[in-house]
């Protein structure tokens, strides 16, 4: 099966049409960043390490995460112990605008692609790298792990209820949060290259990303000089003085956020709580009365199903939402309307996320063929890189290549 670029499928070119990206495969932050780049129209080639003897043994070992983050990319596995493999890697780099790696630097060097080699191959390249904790004042070689980053960044102590164990985010926020920052960093570098012709090196760490995701809360503790405690059912800074939290209706959970003075009056009217509205007529009294308000609201919410409450709220600009589980998310019309979800072609019905960055009122570039995690055809990729048919046959015969695995 050959992988065609997204443009070949008749969709409008995304904003990154013509941008070529080399992803050194093997890490989630880079995979995440390059997935969004592909969604925006960049052509991404993933180079993966194929150890001698690999192949069939690892077939089928791909998890859904890899499938989801490989949408729209092309992949080539290389036996990096071979000089020919490093030559292929260098050829890919020489045609790339960005190289994105979440491998330790010593693993990137096995591909022959340290920053200076990549820059020599493509002088304006953006060389982007994820590390565990930042290479300044420490090592760039430390192994990266989602949970260790979540622990290092302080969020585990802020999430959850008083007295509970440190509580992780319900998704790979350590890896994908860093992936989002890496994405922004690559695009910052690509903008510079497009405007000035200059390349750059850029690094984003998992631990640093966790800290940055909490820039406001960490600054609040630093500036105001106190620990605001844990989030519980709301937010550690906001909930003590405002209606901002998770409530149980008769059939499940919902959230309420940002209830200002006008919304509080409407909320009380909608929930048939006129005495509550009268007791707390202004911001000051409402803020001071949060424990009482919370108690009254909790009792009242239990009287009806959440669809009852949320219908009233959405018609009256009170911000509420059901707490969705993944079945709810997969069925959510709002997600499909914005291409935040789509069914992967040729995958047997796997639903994957789409880019949250939507250009010009439509999805930038739907995932191309080869996106279900199947092996790309290495021969066609190598021919594009300038290898002749005989060279391709020799490389295949010598075991330098593998497709997916």
């Amino acid at each position, binding site marked *: 099966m050959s992988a065609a670029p997204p443009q070949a499928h008749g969709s409008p070119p995304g*904003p990154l049409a013509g941008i070529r990206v080399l992803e050194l495969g093997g890490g989630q932050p880079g995979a995440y960043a390059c997935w969004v780049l592909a969604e925006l129209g960049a052509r991404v080639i993933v180079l993966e390490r194929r150890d001698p003897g690999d192949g069939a043994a690892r077939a089928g070992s791909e998890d859904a995460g890899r499938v989801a983050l490989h949408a729209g990319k092309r992949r080539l596995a290389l036996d990096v112990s071979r000089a020919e493999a490093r030559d292929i890697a260098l050829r890919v780099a020489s045609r790339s605008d960005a190289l994105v790696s979440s491998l330790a630097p010593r693993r990137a060097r096995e591909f022959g692609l340290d920053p200076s080699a990549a820059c020599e191959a493509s002088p304006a390249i953006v060389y982007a790298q994820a590390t565990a904790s930042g290479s300044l004042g420490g090592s760039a070689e430390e192994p990266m792990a*989602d949970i260790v980053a979540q622990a290092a960044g302080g969020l585990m102590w802020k999430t959850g209820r008083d007295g509970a164990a440190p509580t*992780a985010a319900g998704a790979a926020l350590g890896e994908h949060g860093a992936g989002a920052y890496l994405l922004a960093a690559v695009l910052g570098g690509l903008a510079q290259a497009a405007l000035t012709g200059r390349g750059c090196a850029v*690094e984003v760490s998992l631990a640093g990303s966790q800290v940055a995701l909490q820039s406001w809360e960490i600054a609040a503790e*630093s500036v105001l000089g106190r620990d605001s405690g844990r989030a519980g059912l709301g*937010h550690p800074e906001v909930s003590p003085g405002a209606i901002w939290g998770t409530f149980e209706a008769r059939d499940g959970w919902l959230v309420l956020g940002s209830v200002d003075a006008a919304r509080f009056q409407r909320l009380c009217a909608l929930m048939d709580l006129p005495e509550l509205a009268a007791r707390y007529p202004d911001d000051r009294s409402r803020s001071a009365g949060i424990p009482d308000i919370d108690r009254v609201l909790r009792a009242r919410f239990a009287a009806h199903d959440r669809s009852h409450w949320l219908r009233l709220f959405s018609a009256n600009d009170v911000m509420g939402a059901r707490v969705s589980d993944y079945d709810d998310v997969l069925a959510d019309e709002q997600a499909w309307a914005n291409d935040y979800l789509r069914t992967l072609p040729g995958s047997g019905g796997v639903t994957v996320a789409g880019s949250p960055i939507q250009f010009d009122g439509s999805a930038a570039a739907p995932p191309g063929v080869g996106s279900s995690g199947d092996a790309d055809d290495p021969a066609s990729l190598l021919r594009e890189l300038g290898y002749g048919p005989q060279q391709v046959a020799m490389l295949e015969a010598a075991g330098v290549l593998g497709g997916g695995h």
Partner: protein
Amino acid sequence: MAGPLAGVRIVDFTLYQQGPYATVMLADMGADVVKVERREGERTRAYQSWTGVAFYTNNRRKRSIALDARTPGGREIVLRLAARSHALVHNFRPGVMERLGLGYGDVRGANPTIVYARASGWGARGPRARQASVDLIAQAAGGLMSRTGFEGDPPLPLGAAVADQLGAIHLCAGIAAGIVRAARSGEGSEVDVSLFGSQIALQGPEIAAHSLGRGAGARAGAGEGLRRTGGVSGAFPTSDGWIALAADGPALDHLLAALADAGEGPPRAGASGDHASLDAWVRERLRERTTAAWCERLAPLDGVAAGPVRRYAEILADPRSRANGYVVDLDHPAWGRRPVVGSPIVFDEMPLAEPGRVPEVGESTELLLEELGYGWDEITALRESSVI
């Protein structure tokens, strides 16, 4: 440090968190961000509470112009700013900018290559496109809360406004992508980045696994529910605190051997199929020493990731946070010089050292008007008619 976006100009209409954090990221990359404020200044400027801290951390390194965009003169200034800028960003609901005469069509008329970006709650289409949203709403609607917490807990929000931040980071990325397109093809763009979409993207792999009928809805707990493969992954209690650990494959063998040197070996070495008994054994061993002792013993092992579960105070005091520019000192007129969070993005090995400062309301109004070619007579007239 000039940064990769030196010379890039941004017109910033945003309020609260998602928009202002996106534009402070652009400013940290070197862009010249002009914050357009109402003449009285943004309401949260003077707050001595967490809202004031949010303003303070999200508006450093920007220039402020104060004007009344509802007046023809104010609108004209905004269009002239837009005409020489690479991007304009706002976070109003659909219709608000159009009513000001500053919709995409109006702004594109002044600058055909501009990136017109909107920070949104729900995206540009669909039944909830016109509804407002905030961080907690997005965490609930995107599914994250249903996975956060231990079995038996109610759904839990994260302890920080991470949905806002993720919406902001993707917004920053979207603006930069639009600038790339404009520089390469001369085409302008309209881009929408929502809190809801960013939540779904964050969980793309987990949602795909769920759609395949795998990953059966486990809560994340202290990390054990996030485990993708075999091995050990999660936060565990030590004799004096908590340690986070992750190891699989060959690294798991190194980890288990190191843990066993405190006593007898694991139940079945490397038995990835039996998480419960392996986790229990690991848990028992880890309780025997302090977090610091275990970090010193385990972190050097090849492929083993280990580190303490830290609190904010430890992060603020960590020299490595400083060395990489993750924590920087910022001046505030009332609070003085305080450590705040810098940038996790380090270009060319030059970390963010100087976070810039927070501008006074309208501090650069006159200077910017001069840059736009307004004469002093015109500026005086604009001031007298309360446009600026």
